[in-house]
């Protein structure tokens, strides 16, 4: 038997700085309300990017744009070889590549944890059931939920539901994971178990975009931090810089209020 080289690992090592998401001069309004006012940023493969900033500054809107949930008016978003603003965008291919996890988990309440994880690979990717189930069980074990396969969302704690939601996204084998304040609705005790899952993902080399208020966590896992305010990126850089010596007065004020 011939061994097949793992292409993804090879290319990852060969070009560590490869840009996978590129946002240029993004503008978005809800009616008259201008929410994003010219945002540009690059996300490289394997990188963990944290977006911080006051609520209402457009963080959720920004990451929802990346997987095509919210349409934008001008500028561009490139994910791999796809233009998100393209009218003929293949959304299914985009959403295979980009997983998103929401603050309120949004699990399917009439499906068990296992079924929640299996649904999309079965129905969207039309993969064989046995293979999908094997992978779903593996993923649930990976997020430390072995034994909870047959529980319904309503029977799980918030932290457990959120980890099912993460497994559900991972089941599509995305290249990029977006997390929108995924610990904001959780009890303090369960925040850590979800953060642990995300940290492990990041360590595995998953490209992660995190909107978060967990500053200690952001500082620890992020490769790059963006601070947003009023629909603009005010300041960005490595976590040591943003947290250690923020340059902009708005960043300083935001961080000092949290500490």
């Amino acid at each position, binding site marked *: 038997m011939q061994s097949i080289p793992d292409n993804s690992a090879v290319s990852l090592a060969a070009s560590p700085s490869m840009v996978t998401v590129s946002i240029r001069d993004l503008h978005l309004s809800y009616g008259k309300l201008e929410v994003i006012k010219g945002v540009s940023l690059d996300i490289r493969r394997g990188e963990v990017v944290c977006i911080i900033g006051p609520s209402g500054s457009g963080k959720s809107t920004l990451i929802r744009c990346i997987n095509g949930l919210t349409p934008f008016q001008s500028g561009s978003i490139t994910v791999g070889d796809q233009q998100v603003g393209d009218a003929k965008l293949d959304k299914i291919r985009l*959403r295979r590549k980009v997983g998103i996890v929401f603050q309120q988990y949004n699990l*399917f309440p*009439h499906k068990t944890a296992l079924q929640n994880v299996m649904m999309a690979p079965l129905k969207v990717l039309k993969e064989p059931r046995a293979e999908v189930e094997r992978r779903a069980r593996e993923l649930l074990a990976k997020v430390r939920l072995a034994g909870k396969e047959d*529980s*319904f*969302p*309503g029977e799980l704690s918030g932290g457990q539901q959120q980890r099912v939601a993460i497994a*559900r996204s991972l089941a599509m084998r995305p290249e990029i994971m977006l997390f929108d304040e995924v610990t904001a609705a959780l009890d303090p005790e369960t925040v850590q178990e979800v953060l642990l899952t995300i940290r492990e993902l990041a360590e595995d080399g998953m490209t992660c975009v995190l909107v978060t208020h967990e500053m200690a966590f952001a500082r620890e896992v992020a490769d790059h931090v963006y601070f947003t305010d009023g629909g603009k990126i005010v300041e960005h850089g490595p976590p040591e810089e943003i947290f250690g010596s923020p340059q902009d007065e708005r960043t300083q004020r935001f961080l000092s209020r949290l500490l």
Partner: protein
Amino acid sequence: MDAILTLIAPFFRDLYETTGINFNVFYDPYQFKRFLIGAENSILLILAAILLSVIVGVAGAAIQQSRSTWLRWLVGGYIQLFRNTPPMVQLLFFYFGLGAYAPQVDMGGYYQPMVSAFGWAVIALGIFGGAFNVEIFRSGIEAVPKATLEAAESLGFKPWQTFVYFTLPLAFRICLPALTTNLVSLAKTTSLAYVISVPEMANMLNQVWSSTFNIPEMMAVLFCFYVGVVWLLAAFLHWLERRLRLRGYSK
């Protein structure tokens, strides 16, 4: 069925001979046959009308989610028309009004209407019950959390897949109590098919009492028949409600 008659006949014949209370449908094979025909038609009519009304309800609610204004307007008009006219008038309209224009089929020498009275009753009652079901399903669909559907969208489900796998099952659970009320009410309304001579229970028992003049007894049979059938239907729907209740979200 014959075995059942053999079993109960002695009791009812004895009852008649000793007291004069005449439940001949339960001892006379000829009248028992009429009872069975009536029961079969009534039950089939209830099931078929319910099935059609649910299909109409889902289809109508799906159309109301569509972008086409004139389609939504059409469904809205249908709902107004059929909710605000008496079901008996609708039955008469379908059977005598539309029935007159329905094609006839050659049965080898003589002609028969393509749609029987039973068929028209199913159509009329299904459409009548469906008008209420559209509203019930629509309110259920609107109560499904948008965030859940957005999660489906973010996983790559197409709009129709999201509707079938998530919107409908969740909406169905939400509106099941209202649906139960309407379907039970529709089941009772099916007895109106009497007016277009569908051989349902009231009609068949009418044939019985016309020949043997045991009107009070047959009225009691008719009454008890509907008590039993409606109770069974309600019990089934309540069982379904419990079965489908979302686990972990106890009230």
